[in-house]
């Protein structure tokens, strides 16, 4: 066998491996997509070819499931969470990026560390407190605890973006008599805008998919989409076609958002440890 042939075979094996890997990556997703368009009867048979139906998507929004309410809860909770988190994180990130402070390292490490505290530890005291002050099963309560998981990501991610903005424009504006706050508003914010949007989308996805807090804090009024998945149980077990339709409603919008911020995904998840 010549070296060239060897290379070709090696290349073909690689291509095959890539295709297999992609297939394995996609199978669970495709499986849900197929089941969502199957009728109740077809789900229980392994058909690849069937008459697609949209019925599941209307059933999940009807009584008794009312997925629309959960969709609204998820949207409001995730949206208001980032509405608080991003501005607060931006101010802090600017300060961390541009000034040196006493205790700065300690603050940054603490913020990073809170991300690694198991959610189940955080939620126990909150459950007790919310029970006492009547915040159980409210969107407000859920938004408050969601800040716990979103803030560390937001601060670290936005700090990374602001670190990347050169300081000379800011300095020039200060020499011309702008105040620090004017500089932040007129120069830093516009330049950091794409980064802020990226961070907001990243945090939105995390808040949208959050499960444990919502499981413990909500039971009726403030139930979010991931918890709503638990509704689709019939007498004979799981209603897979409805579960799948709900699954698509949960994941499809996030797929779109995730593809938008693809380039910054790794940086966000590792909080800047890997760029």
């Amino acid at each position, binding site marked *: 066998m010549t070296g060239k042939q060897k290379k070709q075979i090696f290349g073909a094996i690689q291509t095959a491996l890539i295709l297999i890997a992609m297939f394995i*990556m996609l199978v669970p997703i495709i499986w849900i997509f197929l089941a969502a368009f199957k009728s109740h009867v077809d789900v229980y048979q392994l058909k690849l070819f069937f008459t697609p139906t949209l019925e599941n998507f209307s059933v999940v929004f009807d009584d008794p499931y009312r997925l629309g309410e959960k969709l609204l809860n998820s949207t409001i909770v995730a949206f208001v969470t980032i509405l608080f988190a991003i501005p607060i994180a931006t101010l802090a990130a600017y300060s961390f990026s541009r000034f040196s402070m006493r205790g700065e390292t300690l603050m940054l490490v603490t913020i990073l560390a809170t991300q*690694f505290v198991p959610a*189940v*530890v*955080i939620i126990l005291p909150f459950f007790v407190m919310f029970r006492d002050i009547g915040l159980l099963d409210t969107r407000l309560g859920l938004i408050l605890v969601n800040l716990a998981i979103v803030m560390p990501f937001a601060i670290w991610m936005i700090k990374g973006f602001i670190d990347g903005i050169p300081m000379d424009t800011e300095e020039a504006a200060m020499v011309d008599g702008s105040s620090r706050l004017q500089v932040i508003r007129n120069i830093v914010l516009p330049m950091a805008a794409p980064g802020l949007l990226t961070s907001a989308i990243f945090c939105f996805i995390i808040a949208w998919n959050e499960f444990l807090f919502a499981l413990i804090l909500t039971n009726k009024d403030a139930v979010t989409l991931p918890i709503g*998945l638990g509704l689709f149980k019939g007498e004979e077990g799981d209603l897979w076609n409805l*579960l799948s339709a709900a699954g698509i409603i949960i994941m499809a919008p996030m*797929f779109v958002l995730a593809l938008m911020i693809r380039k910054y995904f*790794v940086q966000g998840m590792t909080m800047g*440890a890997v760029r």
Partner: protein
Amino acid sequence: MRDNTLKYLLVLPAVLVVFVTAIWPLIEAARLSFTVGRLNRPGSLDQYLGWENYLWAFFEEPAFWNSVWVTAIYTLLTVGLTTVFALGLALLLAPGGRLRSSAQALLILPFAMSPALIGVSFRFMFNPEFGLFDAFFGIVFPPLADVSWLADPQLALAVVVMADVWGWIPFLTLVLIGGLASVPRDTVEAAQVDGASGWRVFKDVTLPQLAPVLAVVVILKSIFSLKTFDQVFMLTNGGPGTATQTLSHYIYFNGMKYGQIGYSASVAWLMVIPMIFLTYAYAKFVFRKADQ
């Protein structure tokens, strides 16, 4: 306003939020861990009994040790398997090109998928009557066809591990592709010119250069594995029996189902301890990067 004051004012709201949403609960959980702490007994949240809860977990509760054991195996398996597969996939996809770039684009999808939903989809696929795996093994390896995966303690754990590995390979792969990109091309080429085999180049040149990124990946994945809750809850709910009950699930069950807030807070704190070491290790890497 002078910068000297302003810089502290700017971080103040963030520090407050982090304090209220993360530091306070940690302190309060520590306090609760020393109380009787029954949800249905008013006043028991202020009734102190010293280290009793911790002693109870250590000496009177086989279920606690079971969940420690499950979590340890789970973490070892998921960290090991995910890292190995991700490294392989990263090496495969790193060179770029059209097929490889579109494959990389797909890797973002599992991140966008709620872990709870990943649990659901694996439960679906491993259904013994009409699941995909049932059908798959029916053709490929019939003895495995009618296995009730989720009813068997060992197999159920295997499925939970599989779901986790499936969900995390993409993220680790993307990180490692980034790491591979920073391995200098000329060192690799020099080794190849010297006649080193592909394996030697990988072992002696690529791997040492990749070591810091690999360390970050392993630490991060360990942290996430130790915390695992969502998939387990949706996939097996800890079962059959307690065969797949991770620590997070054990804490949830004792706290929320049995109302033993004090006891579950003590177990929760036992879980925080390994986290402190991992976080310390992780922070060192983050700041080493920041200093460059």
